[in-house]
């Protein structure tokens, strides 16, 4: 038994190293005083200074932030409604529409929205990207909210209704406060998914619009530069912060049953 545990732990350690080593390398080289991401030369903040002066990158970051804010706000409202509807009513179409965007290959949603927007003569840009992001974020919010609802005591809503609350009052004064941790966690999840999305953005952004992932893509297609390491490190930091907040608000979010 101890021998078996040893090998198991060794194999797991290899798997964890495989998961983390690449990210650690990106972060470490973002402070490396060398253009080549090849060996450690010395410590520097130069790449972050270069980044702060890179107007294209700042514009891309601003766009990403704006899209993520709008997409997460709207998809949180729609996703919460969808989660509530899937929890309360027996619906046939909604669960399919909510879960299908998560289940199918991402590229399908990207290209079908591209055809859709172009056929409608809708100019590709920030708005089309935000509309697309809302569509794929709704499902994730709905899943988190529904999980939260399934742990809620339904008799509380009954009690509120018995005391004369209208359905809207019961929702805003009883249901919503109770599922709030799920709603906030869903919103943070949608924000992260939106700010990180590459594939769907790639197809719906058109030629003139850049987001952070699109900017990173065009930079690494040309050359590997530690500036990419610096922006990656900052983006990882932001994501990490959002996850920490989400896990504080809704501890069950990070357990396997909702992942």
């Amino acid at each position: 038994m101890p021998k078996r545990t040893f090998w198991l732990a060794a194999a797991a350690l290899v798997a964890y190293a495989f998961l983390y080593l690449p990210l650690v390398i990106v972060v470490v080289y973002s402070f490396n005083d060398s253009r080549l991401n090849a060996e450690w030369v010395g410590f520097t903040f130069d790449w972050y200074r270069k980044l702060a002066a890179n107007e294209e990158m700042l514009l891309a970051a601003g766009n990403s932030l704006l899209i993520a804010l709008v997409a997460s706000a709207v998809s949180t409202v729609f996703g919460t409604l969808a989660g509530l509807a899937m929890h309360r009513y027996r619906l046939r179409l909604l669960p399919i529409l909510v879960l299908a965007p998560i289940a199918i290959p991402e590229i399908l949603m990207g290209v079908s929205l591209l055809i859709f927007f172009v056929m409608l003569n809708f100019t590709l840009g920030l708005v089309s990207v935000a509309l697309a992001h809302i569509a794929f974020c709704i499902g994730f919010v709905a899943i988190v909210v529904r999980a939260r609802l399934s742990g809620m005591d339904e008799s509380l809503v009954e009690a509120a209704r018995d005391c004369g609350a209208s359905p809207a009052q019961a929702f805003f004064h009883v249901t919503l406060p109770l599922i709030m941790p799920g709603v906030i966690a869903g919103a943070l999840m949608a924000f992260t998914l939106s700010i990180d999305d590459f594939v769907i953005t790639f197809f719906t952004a058109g030629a003139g619009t850049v987001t952070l992932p699109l900017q990173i893509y065009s930079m690494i297609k040309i050359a590997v530069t530690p500036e990419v390491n610096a922006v990656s490190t900052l983006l990882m930091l932001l994501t990490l912060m959002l996850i920490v907040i989400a896990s504080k608000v809704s501890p069950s979010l990070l357990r396997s049953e909702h992942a």
Partner: protein
Amino acid sequence: MTRRHSGRWGKWLVAGPPLVYLFVFFAIPALIMVVASFRTPGDFGGLAPLVGADGEIDLNLESYTRFFEDALYAQIFVKSFWYALATTLICLVLAYPLATLIANSERRRRDLLLLLVILPFWSNFLIRIYAWMIILGPNAALARTLNGVLGAFGQEPVSLLFSAFAVLVCLVYVHLPFMVLPLYANLEKHDQALLDAAQDLGANGWQRFWRITFPLSLPGVYAGSALVFIPAFGIFAIPDILGGPDDSLIGNVIKQQFLETRDWPFGSVLSIVLTASALAFAALAAWVGRRGVGRLAAGDA
């Protein structure tokens, strides 16, 4: 449960907005794409008018015929299939010990170990691809060491980056958490008493694993395989960034059809065939999984 709070209007007030949104921005675009796959490509890319100059509605099977007649596309599909299958199997081999370790550890430590698996998944997709550009780059330690060894044996130096190897490593890297999570969720529910009983009856470690743990974990294996296979099958960013010219997968051809060649009907055909086959494989995995579990329950495993 009484449903007083859920009158007919309430239901549509709640379900209506997300339903309408997803109908407009998911279902309709998907349907438009299905129609587009039967249309004629436009002279300057995109689509030719649906109603031709002669007043006839122009719908045809030409793009489908082209797909099934040109062996090139079948080859790329087969290649994508092998990449996705290899990714799935490697993920399974890596994820199994990890999921077992997490499931066997103390309850307090489980959440942390699980969080450590999920965390890299939340970092940006492109960053994770970029990390492998650094690791496999020609000036990095790995390539220099490898080529030093090859040189000592009089072999030509090889490029790790822009190769099938780079694509596969990164595919595994990106999809590993999708395999660990369902496997863990399954393994965590296993009853230790079964293994103890087998041991009492004289089964050794391998026998206990192959005849009890593994068969019981099959639902988790199939769920994880579907979660890895579907996205891996349609991937385009990884071969696009890390692959060489021969490593184009079906996702790359779709991207090319939509953004470079601008043959939308053909791109639509490829997207539809991709989605249909990915979902068919997932359904197959689910069906095999259910059947396997049924057999186990019936006791003839």
